[in-house]
Structure formats: structure tokens, C-alpha cells
């Protein structure tokens, strides 16, 4: 997010936690139906929204369900009626939704879901890492990751804008780090209610809404002679999303003064080493990069806001002169070459002429803190690789006890 220096108009400012900010954004999106099951640290989103509905502040149905599997089933079906829908979950809740995740995207239901990132059991843990949403990266959902509370708020509007675009029609996750964002109070600039409604496309949100007068078969059987074609349609919709997302972000910039992109780069113009990360960690990395640049080190950062679809062409261009890329994975891909972000980047740069050295850092599992000292060590690790021309270990664990 880049904040424009010119003030667009008088804005309302609130102190909100990440969860409250998401609920506030959903309230302003004119949603018709919300169905969710509470789970720490997402709970406050659901609590606030149920209060808004009970108080008449949001004119929506709130369907309380017995599980996340049902919550996503409800919102998926409701989206097919043309309604604007919302749900939210974390960790085990997302795991329980897994079966329906693929159904939502395959039915092309433009559902928006907030995921408050939390580690997966076992051992049970309520704190942040990205193993929940990274496990869902191939499920056909668009994934946005917020760095701070303002971004969590802003990305909700942009998620609806992209999901409901007729050339996309893919469900979208807005991911925010558990506790670090969900429970931390930050200053949030709200957008105007009327601007929000003007920004969002008109309803029905889905082009073939359920209508008894015009019967349509939803979710039929498709055997080997047709199934493959529907999957290629989904792959194509992801490609379309790569075109639609910058337009949606551009338009959001005009109403909010906050300009988003697939990613936010810092210091890449002359950097030898770039560290790429998702979510709240990106703020720490940028802060430390600034310190190191003052000390004369050529380092930069990339915060990836859009992880799926992976903005490969734009990333390749932004990182074309970088010697060493360090991918920061807040998840473990057991038995793989490295973490998912690392593998995406390595695969992307295999074809590049420069072919930078790429290293993987796995950090922050189960909410393990990443301190500025850790961040400094990660940059130094990248600088060392740049000097030696050699990646000593494919996956380096940072912050774990030996």
C-alpha cells in the first residue's frame, strides 16, 4: 500500500483491531448473507458481524451453523443465488472446509472469506503461521495477504471487486496474521459508505442466479469427457484475475488514496539481496532493511500481497537485477525441496537469464516471534550468499532452538 500525499476528502479514522477492521469493511460492502463458525483468533469478526446484523446496522441474514464445513457450504449456495456473502475462519476451521473450498471455486461462486492465519494442530496452538492458507493454495481461491490492519480492511473491498468480476468469478481469501494483526489495535482510515457502494459492482454477484422460473442444473456430474474442460476454465479465470486485480486496485486507490499492487517493493533499484515475505513480517523486514541501507548494505524487500494468482511476470521484472533472493516461508512443506514461496520463486527464475541464487528461510511457526535481530541475521545470510555465490542450505530455520 502506498499512501497518496494529497488528501482526497475528509476521512473517518477509527482505532480497530484487525478482526474489527474486517467486520467494519464487510459491513460497508452491503453483504446479504453471512455464515460462520467462531474459532480463535477469527472470533471477533464473527461476533462483530452478528452484532451488526442483530442491531440492524447490516441488512443481512446471519446463519449460525454447527461447523465450518457447513458455513462454507451455506455461503457457496447463497452466492449462487446472486447474493453477496461472507465467511471467516482460521486454522482447523479452514482445514474442515477443505472439501468445500474446491467446490466453491469450481462452482465459480464469488465468496469472500477472511482467514486469520493460525498454526495447524498438533500440538494445538492458536498463534500465527501460514500453514493453514498455504495448504489451500491450490484450491482455486485467490489469496490476498495483509501486512497491517489498514490493509486487512482495504483488501476486503478489493476482494469483492475481483471475485465478482464476470471474467474472474473466483472466491477470494483475505489473509491476516493471527493476533499480530487480528488482535492489535491500529489506526484505520475508513472509506466513505457511498464510495464503497459505488466501488462494488451491482448485484446479482453471480451471472446465473438460482431462479425457479429458469431452471439450471448446478454442480452436476462431469465424467472424463468433460471434467478436464471445467478445470481449464478455472485456470483461465486465474489468468484473467491477473489482469483484473491491478484495475481493481487502481480504482480503489482513487477512492481511498491508498494504492495497492500485486506486491510492494522497497530498495530494489540498487539491491543485491532481496527478501520476500507475506503478511505482518514484511513490516519488520522493511524496517530492518532501512537500517541496513543506512549502514551501506544493498538490501531490499518485497511484500507479496497477492499470492494466488502468483504475479510471475511482474515479480520476474521487479527482481531481474537481484543477485540473491531470500524467500520467507511461514510454513513447512514436509519432505519437499523447500517452502511454497521458495519453490514458486525458484521455479519462476529457472528460465531467467541472470538466474539469481534463491534461499529459503522457514520462520515463525506456531507464532514464534521474528525479532529485528532475526531479520538482520536473515539479510546478513543473504549478503553472505551474495559474497560466496553459494547457498549453504536449501532451507534454513530461523528462530528455532537446536
Amino acid at each position: 500500500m502506498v499512501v497518496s500525499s494529497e488528501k482526497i476528502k475528509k476521512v473517518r479514522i477509527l482505532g480497530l483491531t484487525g478482526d474489527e477492521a474486517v467486520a467494519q469493511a464487510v459491513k460497508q460492502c452491503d453483504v446479504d448473507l453471512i455464515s460462520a463458525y467462531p474459532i480463535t483468533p477469527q472470533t471477533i469478526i464473527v461476533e462483530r458481524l452478528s452484532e451488526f446484523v442483530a442491531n440492524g446496522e447490516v441488512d443481512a441474514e446471519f446463519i449460525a451453523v454447527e461447523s465450518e464445513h457447513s458455513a462454507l457450504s451455506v455461503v457457496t449456495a447463497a452466492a449462487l443465488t446472486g447474493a453477496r456473502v461472507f465467511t471467516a475462519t482460521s486454522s482447523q476451521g479452514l482445514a474442515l472446509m477443505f472439501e468445500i473450498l474446491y467446490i466453491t471455486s469450481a462452482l465459480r461462486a464469488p465468496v469472500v472469506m477472511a482467514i486469520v492465519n493460525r498454526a495447524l494442530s498438533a500440538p494445538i496452538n492458536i498463534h500465527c503461521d501460514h500453514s493453514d492458507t498455504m495448504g489451500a493454495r491450490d484450491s482455486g481461491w485467490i489469496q490476498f495477504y495483509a501486512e497491517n490492519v489498514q490493509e486487512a480492511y482495504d483488501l476486503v473491498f478489493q476482494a469483492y471487486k475481483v471475485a465478482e468480476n464476470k471474467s474472474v468469478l473466483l472466491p477470494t481469501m483475505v489473509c491476516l496474521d493471527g493476533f499480530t494483526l487480528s488482535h492489535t489495535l491500529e489506526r484505520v482510515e475508513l472509506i466513505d459508505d457511498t464510495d464503497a457502494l459505488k466501488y462494488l459492482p451491482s448485484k446479482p454477484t453471480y451471472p446465473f442466479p438460482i431462479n425457479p422460473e429458469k431452471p439450471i442444473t448446478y454442480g452436476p456430474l462431469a465424467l472424463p469427457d468433460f471434467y478436464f474442460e471445467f478445470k481449464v476454465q478455472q485456470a483461465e479465470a486465474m489468468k484473467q484475475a491477473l489482469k483484473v486485480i491491478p484495475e481493481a486496485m487502481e480504482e480503489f486507490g482513487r477512492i481511498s488514496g491508498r494504492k495497492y499492487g500485486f506486491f510492494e517493493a522497497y530498495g530494489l533499484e540498487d539491491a543485491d539481496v532481496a527478501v520476500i515475505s507475506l503478511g505482518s513480517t514484511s513490516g519488520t523486514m522493511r524496517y530492518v532493511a532501512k537500517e541496513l541501507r543506512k549502514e551501506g548494505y544493498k538490501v531490499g524487500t518485497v511484500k507479496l500481497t497477492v499470492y494466488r494468482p502468483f504475479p510471475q511476470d511482474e515479480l520476474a521484472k521487479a527482481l531481474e537485477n537481484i543477485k540473491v533472493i531470500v524467500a520467507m516461508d511461514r510454513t513447512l512443506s514436509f519432505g519437499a525441496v523447500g517452502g511454497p514461496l521458495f519453490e514458486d520463486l525458484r521455479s519462476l527464475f529457472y528460465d531467467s537469464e541472470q538466474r539469481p541464487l534463491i534461499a529459503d528461510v522457514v520462520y515463525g511457526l506456531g507464532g514464534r516471534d521474528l525479532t529485528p535481530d532475526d531479520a538482520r541475521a536473515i539479510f546478513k545470510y543473504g549478503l553472505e550468499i551474495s559474497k560466496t555465490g553459494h547457498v549453504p542450505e536449501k532451507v534454513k530455520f530461523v528462530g528455532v532452538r537446536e
Partner: protein
Amino acid sequence: MSKKPGWREIPIGGLILEPGSTVKVRTGDWRTFRPIIDHDKCIKCLMCWIYCPDASIIIVGSGDTVERVEIDYDHCKGCGICERVCPRKAISMVPEGG
């Protein structure tokens, strides 16, 4: 066999926009046992018509008059429910191809 449409030519998400299109699928091919109606025993009570899960019992007649009950062999899967529910035992299941 005619060429099937490519991914650009079919509706999104597996939608079937034309209602009643399952009529085109000849599920009668799946049948192992074929129901045969003994019209001498049949009293046209229509219990088979009520219970048939595939709407494969056809009423021949006009208005409220039932002249005869027939079976749509293009869609009957041979489940045998009609044989079970017939109070006059007027339907028997005969092996296909036998």
C-alpha cells in the same frame, strides 16, 4: 460420434443451462433386470408410478382415464422398486439379454 465442445464453448462451473436435459441420457443401458408388466393382472393403481425414482412409468390415456401403464425402457435402470410395491404382483423382473 460428434465432436464434443472445447472449454471455451461450455458454460462455467459445470452449469447445465437447459432444463430437463437428463432425458437425453439413456440410463436404460445400465439395466441388468427388465421389468415386464402383466396387463391382465394390472389394476392401474399407479403405485409403481408413485414409487419409480426415475419417472420411467408412463401412463397411457387421456384426461383422468388410465388406459394402460407402460415402462420407459430408455430411462428405466431396472431397480425393481415397481416389482416390490405392486400389490397385484403384476410386474416381474426378467434378466436382460436372457
